[in-house]
């Protein structure tokens, strides 16, 4: 019995009155890698949402003077060795006398300062907000001025801008797919755990069946059935549906497992003795205890969706150009020749790797934090 309430420190009181979410957050924060991943994921979504603004160019701008141009470096030291404002050097095209290939070399004499919030050609954010400023650009209105930080593709389009725009589809398909899986998973998993009996048997055997199918061929088969040449939005939606056909099974398993475990808990029986209705037992007493587990497992299934979309689009079964996603971009880097001549076209792959790793670390951290009362 704490008789000295008034003498207790504020920290102790804060701990005593900390909800499960607060304790979980405290536990999550001790997971450094997960915290860093949270920031990375946040940044990626920020870039995707404001892709037009963060991109130096329109993702579809064709630039015939700079086809397959290599990434341009940002210099802070000028030709004479003096520190200067960050700048890029102009690219000069030179045809190789033997191979007839166009090579680009940087001209140290012809430099353009890099500007933040640079003025640009008018464009429309999200297709309806007219803007004339981009986050980064070169200020000189000069035909030679260019800033291709990650180079250009075979039509002279800026790879960085295309990655930012591709992030929109690649990152959102994970969220939409998981949302759809979540709805199916929580309904079927909840029914399975709640009713038990034959409902449970049917749902569980269906999950077994779906999980035993090899995923890639299944996705390929389904994606091949999506008629080509449709509105990209339709294709996009079809792809998420296809991904959710497998995706819900994992979530349903988690929901059912938590349901069965919690149903046996004394505090659930205690809630019944306290007169709580069946609905209240589920919503007030059980759901708060497994919501955190579900958030963690949802987070862990987002990267699977992202990888699946990338794989399908890479194989030409997902989204088609002119839509851009990371998978579509990687399709440009399919041939060995391209890879040897323009390795920067593989950078979208790096974006996929970073995203998938960040989501996995984040999900691991959330999973550990989802049981704040367990042994530390």
């Amino acid at each position: 019995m704490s008789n000295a309430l008034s003498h207790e420190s504020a920290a102790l009181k804060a701990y005593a009155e900390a909800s499960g979410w607060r304790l979980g957050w405290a536990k999550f924060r001790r997971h450094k890698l997960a915290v860093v991943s949270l920031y990375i994921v946040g940044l990626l979504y920020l870039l995707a949402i404001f892709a037009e603004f963060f991109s130096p160019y329109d993702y579809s701008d064709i630039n015939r003077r700079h086809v397959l141009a290599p990434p341009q470096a940002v210099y802070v030291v000028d030709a004479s060795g003096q520190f200067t404002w960050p700048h890029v050097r102009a690219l000069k095209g030179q045809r190789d006398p033997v191979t007839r290939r166009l090579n680009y070399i940087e001209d140290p004499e012809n430099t353009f300062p890099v500007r933040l919030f640079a003025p640009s050609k008018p464009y429309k954010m999200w297709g309806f907000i007219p803007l004339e400023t981009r986050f980064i650009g070169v200020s000189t209105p000069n035909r030679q001025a260019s800033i291709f930080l990650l180079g250009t593709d075979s039509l002279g389009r800026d790879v960085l801008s295309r990655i930012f725009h591709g992030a929109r589809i690649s990152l959102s398909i994970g969220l939409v797919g998981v949302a759809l899986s979540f709805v199916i998973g929580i309904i079927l998993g909840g029914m399975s755990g709640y009713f038990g009996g034959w409902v449970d048997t049917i749902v569980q055997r269906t999950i077994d069946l779906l999980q035993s199918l090899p995923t890639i061929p299944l996705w390929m088969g389904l994606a091949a059935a999506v008629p080509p040449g449709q509105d990209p939005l339709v294709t996009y939606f079809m792809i998420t549906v296809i991904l959710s056909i497998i995706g819900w099974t994992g979530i349903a398993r988690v929901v059912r497992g938590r349901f069965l475990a919690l149903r046996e808990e004394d505090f659930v029986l205690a809630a019944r003795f306290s007169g709580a209705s069946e609905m209240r037992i589920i919503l007030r007493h059980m759901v708060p205890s497994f919501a955190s587990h579900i958030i963690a497992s949802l987070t862990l299934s987002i990267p699977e969706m992202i990888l699946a979309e990338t794989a399908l689009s890479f194989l030409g079964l997902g989204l088609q150009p002119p839509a851009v996603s990371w998978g579509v971009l990687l399709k440009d880097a399919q041939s060995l020749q391209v890879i040897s001549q323009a390795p920067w076209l593989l950078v979208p792959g790096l974006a996929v790797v970073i995203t998938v790793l960040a989501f996995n670390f984040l999900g691991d951290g959330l999973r550990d934090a989802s049981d704040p009362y367990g042994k530390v």
Partner: protein
Amino acid sequence: MNEPLLTLTNVEKHFPQSNGFLKPAAAPVRAVNGISFSIAEGETTALVGESGCGKSTAAKLITSAITPSAGKITLRTRDGNILDVGSLRGRARKALWRDVQLIFQDPFSSLNPRMTVKQIIAEPLRNFDIAHGQEATDLVADLMDRVGLQPGTMSRYPHAFSGGQRQRIGIARALAVKPRLVVGDEPVSALDVSVAAQILNLFQSLKKDLGLTYLLITHDLSVVRHSADRVAVMYLGNIVEENTTAALFKSPRHPYTQALLSAVPSQDNQDKPRIVLTGEVASARNIPTGCPFHPRCAYATDVCRLTAPTFEQLPTGGRVACHTPLEFMP
């Protein structure tokens, strides 16, 4: 005393065993195998037996958490009617929990870690429409005060409390509906000895103040001595002996009761040797024929192996189920 508050008549609970798909069904677990006893209003009755003998199952039957496979459980309601506890459903079953409440063994798993103490204790107030809002908060404060908790701590979560304090929270929750019968399923076995003594004292004072009737379930006879009026001893789903606490402690008549008592340290049995039961502890999956205790009984005869003993009324007011009860020692 008039009609007992609670009566159990030949109550059985068998759990069917399924071995899985397409396998022959195994024999059911006979957790409670035909028990009869009654609890008088205002008394504390103890149900004693070793682990696995069906005590928790009995507690769940009495509180209508599960329904009996056979037999009858009846409760005398406030207005004198007799309620068939075993057949309650829906609203009627919910209404029972205004009269009968359970206190759990585990003070950790029985409190929802994601609810504050106030929310936990106010839950029955809200659900039974007893009090809402400020009125409920005041009642929670009263209840906390009554069980020895500081009302100022009601906005804390269970993780901030010790085992003993958590058990007090559970008691406050059970008392919120002003029940008439409180069943404690090993309410102190998870606590340290000194904390357990405090909780038992709390039970005593609550009983005096609120006129409660207790069913105290325990595996530990030493808990029973100072808190119970009557004791029923259970073995493998059966009651083997029942008597007033004084008579049972003074002169146990069933060999199993004798063995249990010899393990309790007290002045009377200092010089007596402790009876150590030999033989395997039989399981409720496979109850021996005849007297269920015979494989471990030092006095077992051939009759014991073949026929189950029936109850014999004792002159001291109790009853015992044994073919050759031990000598009465006045």
